[in-house]
């Protein structure tokens, strides 16, 4: 079967909830076999976009195509070919690891003769072979999250939707999951991942779509976006609040782009600064600078 060149293609998608416009004319492309990071602050429309892709929300305007299927009309065959990892854990907590996978093997119509192998494979993905008989209630947060991902892969989907896959997890668990997601991408699974963790997007995504107020405000490779919007270097100037205000006013007067980072003022494109720049620490510009610049939001 011919793979469509884009796994997801959204054009001018609008979704309103009463007076609130959650998605306001979104364009989004996910080239087959790549990982696209949907980066944005809370309320930017990431979760609504995810819901639109499984037809759990229906767009008011625009066109949506998933794996060659037109949504919402043909959402069911599209859903059969994709896996979804929700932000909120909705495993059956009184069931065992294996029973959770079994149920989803049925829901995703894995044929009878392949069911056993599919469950074993998912157990390997989750690295939970030894805990197969354990109730979900008995698992750690990281194990539950791995099971949630493996559950979405039981039918070998071509497309995986990950909604904030590592939110609320320890750093080491997060890195473990990154390795898993990276492995899936290298195996050719197309991945759409929403996140508000900058580092996650920077490490995993081939291209990043920065969302703010329901729109895509920037699209590109993480490195390109940094260079384009924040330059090569940033200068962090630390000091008491009064000093920071002074630095900000001074920078504005000279036409330098700045952002506030809590305890410091960051002057962007520091590589262009002349000798009389304030004293501070220089560091490479990063995606967080772009994020804050474009969305006007601080990152926690």
């Amino acid at each position, binding site marked *: 079967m011919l793979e469509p060149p884009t796994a997801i293609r959204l054009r001018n998608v609008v979704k309103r909830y009463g007076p609130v416009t959650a998605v306001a004319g979104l364009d989004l492309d996910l080239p087959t076999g790549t990982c696209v990071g949907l980066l944005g602050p809370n309320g930017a429309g990431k979760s*609504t976009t995810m819901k639109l892709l499984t037809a*759990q929300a229906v767009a008011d305007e625009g066109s949506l195509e998933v794996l060659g299927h037109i949504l919402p009309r043909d959402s069911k065959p599209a859903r059969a070919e994709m896996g*979804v990892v*929700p932000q909120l854990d909705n495993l059956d907590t009184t*069931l065992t690891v294996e029973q959770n996978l079994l*149920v989803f093997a049925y829901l995703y119509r894995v044929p009878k003769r392949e069911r056993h192998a599919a469950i074993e494979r998912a157990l390997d993905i989750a690295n939970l072979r030894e805990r197969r008989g354990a109730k979900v209630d008995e698992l750690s947060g990281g194990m539950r999250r791995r099971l949630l991902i493996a559950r979405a892969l039981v039918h070998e989907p071509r497309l995986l939707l990950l909604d904030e896959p590592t939110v609320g997890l320890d750093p080491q668990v997060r890195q473990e999951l990154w390795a898993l997601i990276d492995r899936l991408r290298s195996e050719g699974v197309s991945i759409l991942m929403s996140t508000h963790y900058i580092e996650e997007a920077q490490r995993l995504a081939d291209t990043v779509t920065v969302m703010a107020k329901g729109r895509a405000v920037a699209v590109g490779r993480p490195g390109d976006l940094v260079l384009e919007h924040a330059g090569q270097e940033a200068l962090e100037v630390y000091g008491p609040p009064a000093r920071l205000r002074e630095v900000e006013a001074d920078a504005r007067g000279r036409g330098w782009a700045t952002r506030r980072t809590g305890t410091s003022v960051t002057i962007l494109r520091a590589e262009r600064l002349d000798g009389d720049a304030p004293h501070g620490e220089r560091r490479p510009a990063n995606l967080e600078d772009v994020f804050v610049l474009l969305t006007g939001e601080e990152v926690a």
Partner: protein
Amino acid sequence: MRRGRRRQVGRLDREALAGVLVREVVNFSSYWRSTTFSSTVEPTIYLLAFGFGFGSIVSTVAGLNYVEFVGTGTVATAVLFSSVFPAMFGTFVKYKFQRTYDAILAAPVDTEELVTGEALWMAARAGTYGCVPLLVAMVFGLDPSPGMLTVPLIAFLTGLGWSAFGILIAAVMNSIENFNYVTSIVITPLFLVAGTYFPISGLPEWAQVAAQFNPLYHCVQLVRGAVFGFEGWVDVYHLAVIVGFGLVAWRAAINRMQRKLID
């Protein structure tokens, strides 16, 4: 190459229904003891309380031994309790707190299939638990009859309607506390004015007319018909009301769940 199955998917897919049912069956393996306990013990207590309580005052009702009267009537109580309450509370918990339905609808399962699968499962349970009072009554002297073999089917059909009704209530209500209104205003009166514990012929005329709109009354009548001998067209009428109630509740439940689950 990943699997490129592109199978025909339509409405009320067998495979989608199977998925929903398998989930329920696997879950049932972890809680069947408590459910079976309450679904059997509750109607048995009603049966014993009324059977011995009233049975000591009245020996026959509507030409039947009172234990036989109550034993057959309590089938409807068992069906009601084992379908409408799990449907109301279970559905609400699954979509609101456990977010199970989010996971199911992200799979190739539509709301119509989800609601239908859930209702079928609860109806199957009601069909089984509905037979318990009959078995208990047999211990206390109810004679077996071949018509009794249709009781599981009657209980199943009635259970289907009440399960769908429960799902509908869960879809309409915004909080689980509001279920109290439905229980007090709808379920308790219907449960009492169904001819289970006393014949409706002793009630004022308006209540007798109202009972005609009570699917539970028709279930009671049909079960008595099954056990003591069907009476022809009147039983077809009882069956028609049960089926009609089921159809209306089923479609309404799908409609309201769709609104609740799909933005």
